[in-house]
């Protein structure tokens, strides 16, 4: 189970009072929000629960949240929300320091819980990636791969998703003040899809959908928007990705199903036609997790290293003084050099 908190960890907020046993926080729990390699979307979600934001600010003491406040603190934290994957040596050291400061550490989002899309690169490819990305790789320090927080320190709870769900975030905060277990279902997206009465896009349209092997939590928005799930919340419990990938590969070859006189589903560029297409489906934001990885290892789908991604003439690297404002000579712009200055 994702939410496996250490006993008494939430005591700071869930201590019973004399009669009701209801949470009687003697002081507001100190909350920190930090990020590693990520898009900031998950911590932005905290600011996106507009209806609860000010109440949250009253019930919790937000002592560290660089994106939202200038006040900085190094802890200790009752709850530390951690976004992003560990991608540099400095980050590996930093997360260990933060863990020691935090009573509860909650990893939020696909980057923190599964490494994120950036975790698709393998150690073998790392140097090639770095060389391809930066003219002078030496200036850039990064680990061979991007890894989830739980590979470096103990994680008390995980909020899945790319991005996380605002409802689940509030659910976790509420459970901290009430002492109850947050309801973070680990079942397939299909359950929510069916509850909403959305016709299955696999069956009715022949579209590829990761819903059956993906954890619910998003509200089944992709099928609701007429497309297949692409796995934002990562593998559901006991995901049978092998069985499903096999079925998708078969369907790629037999889009109409096994009924000889069945009609073809309406043409759609998103429908897989070969194994590689199916493979790429599993190489998403949670593609580094074992159930997904086991498929891409077989079918491929992880990013192809651009072997010729070296620069004919790398952009010059600037040193020394700061840039100064100045007028741009007209001719430099008007130059119609077809390939631009990069040559």
């Amino acid at each position, binding site marked *: 189970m994702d939410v496996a908190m250490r006993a008494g960890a939430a005591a700071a907020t869930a201590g019973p009072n004399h009669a009701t046993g209801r949470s009687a926080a003697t002081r507001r729990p100190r909350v920190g929000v930090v990020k590693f*390699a990520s*898009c*900031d*979307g998950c911590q*932005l979600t905290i600011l*996106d629960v*507009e209806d609860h934001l*000010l109440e949250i*600010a009253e019930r919790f003491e937000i002592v560290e949240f*660089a*994106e*939202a*406040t*200038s006040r*900085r603190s190094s802890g200790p934290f009752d709850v530390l929300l951690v976004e992003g994957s560990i991608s*540099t040596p400095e*980050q590996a050291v930093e997360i260990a320091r933060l863990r020691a400061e935090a009573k509860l550490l909650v990893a939020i989002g696909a980057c923190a819980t599964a490494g994120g*899309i*950036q975790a*698709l*690169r393998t150690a073998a490819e790392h140097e090639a990636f770095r060389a*391809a*990305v*930066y*003219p002078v790789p030496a*200036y*850039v320090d990064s680990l061979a791969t*991007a890894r989830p927080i739980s590979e470096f320190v103990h994680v008390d709870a995980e909020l899945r998703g790319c991005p996380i769900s605002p409802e689940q975030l509030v659910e976790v905060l509420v459970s901290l003040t009430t002492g109850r277990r947050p309801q973070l279902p680990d079942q397939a997206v299909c359950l929510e899809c069916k509850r909403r009465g959305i016709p299955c896009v696999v069956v009715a349209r022949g579209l590829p959908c990761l819903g059956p092997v993906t954890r619910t939590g998003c509200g089944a*928005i*992709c099928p609701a*928007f*007429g*497309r297949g799930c692409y796995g934002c919340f990562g593998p559901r419990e006991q995901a049978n990705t092998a069985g499903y990938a096999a079925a998708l590969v078969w369907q790629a070859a037999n889009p109409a199903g096994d009924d000889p006189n069945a009609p073809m589903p309406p043409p759609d*560029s998103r429908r897989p036609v070969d194994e590689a297409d199916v493979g790429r489906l599993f190489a998403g934001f949670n593609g580094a997790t074992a159930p997904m990885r086991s498929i891409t290892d077989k079918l491929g789908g992880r*990013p192809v*290293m*651009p072997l*010729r*991604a070296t620069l004919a*003439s790398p*952009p010059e*690297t*600037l040193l020394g*003084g*700061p*840039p*100064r*404002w*100045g007028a*741009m*000579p007209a001719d*430099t*712009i008007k*130059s119609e*050099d077809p*390939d*631009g*200055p*990069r*040559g």
Partner: protein
Amino acid sequence: MGHGGDLRFQVENLTRVEGEGSLHLRVRDGVVEEAHLAIFEAPRYFEALVVGRTPDEVIDIVARICGICPVAYQMSAVHAFEDLFHVAVHPQVRALRRLLYCAEWIESHALHIYLLHAPDFLGYPSAIELARDQRELVNGGLRLKKAGNHLLSVLGGRPIHPVSVRVGGFSRMPDRAELVALRPSLEEALALSQATVDVVTGLEAPAFEREPRLVALKHRSEYPLNDGRIVSNDGVNLRASDWGKAFHEVQVPWSNALQARAGDGLPYLLGPAARVVLAGEQLHPLAKEALVRTGALESIRRNPYRSIVARAIELVHVCAEALDIIDAYVKPEAPAVAVTPRPGIAAWATEAPRGLLFHRYVVGDDGKVAAATIVPPTSQNQAAIEADLATFAPAVLDLPMGEATHRLEQLIRSYDPCISCATHFLDLSVEDAG
């Protein structure tokens, strides 16, 4: 704080910016010798991660570059591909994409004005403290932000990383009733944004003026969002796909983000100020009226601290245009048209909330991406920020350290830098990968 000798000036962690950066200045005898905006956001190598993917997959992936402006990344990408594939989308699709962009601008601008930037002017560490004293003000900002998020959810399923954009159109388009139901919240948002203009115009901005080179999209009839030509206040005028003809990227040793410079190696400025100045005529009448009311056009151009006013005026524009688009909306027969991929170079620029965002993809014969270049606004603004720091820093060095730090951070924040976008970009030449 004296002038003599060698002064090192460090802001370790920039706060209330999206992502992780730091500022380093070296000043000798009152002259700034070094102004480094260091971005240590860890590399994520997106330009390599999209290689081998289909255009529709790329749209989902590049959104993850930035959780604050995912729509911008989806828009630059989808337009780039549709430009290469000669796709003519349904007029309502085009309109709805503008609406989607409006929604993101509302959310992003409201976030920056109320939660990130306003506390600077009013002397609070964060909107939370600000809310204790001026709850109504912050509540208004949150309602504005929510209006944008709500619209994003209706159009794309969720505010962050929406799921509905695809090459050729949308995977689903809403029923008219779904959009009409949003009118009340958007009408309130319009009113709130008009009030916002007056509030931020009244904020006292540090005296600091310079003559920046401004760059933005410009369209004959629309305020720049997804469409227009790349223009500058000193003569640039290029197709949205031709960014590379006037600008290029460079790497600096102190940052994980590539910087962009003009052909002459000099900095230029993107964002609300650039747009309001260069494309002011295309503002919605209500936004124009607000701009006139402030009489701040000139100070917006010259004083970076006044960008908050430009942002507020754009808020008025996107709220007003959103309402217009909804009123004119008719659900088309099909949400998307069929697309035939063809190999070649797909490039396009659109206007993210914080400035011009350029995408360039090499599409192979298999219809998949072979190479990519993504130039986000913050890496383009980086040089401008450093240039401003170099110019402005001496003026605050006499202040106490804390105050000076605050002023410089406030200056950096006025660009609404989105550092997580600015990092990890891959540079490829056509010939190499084509």
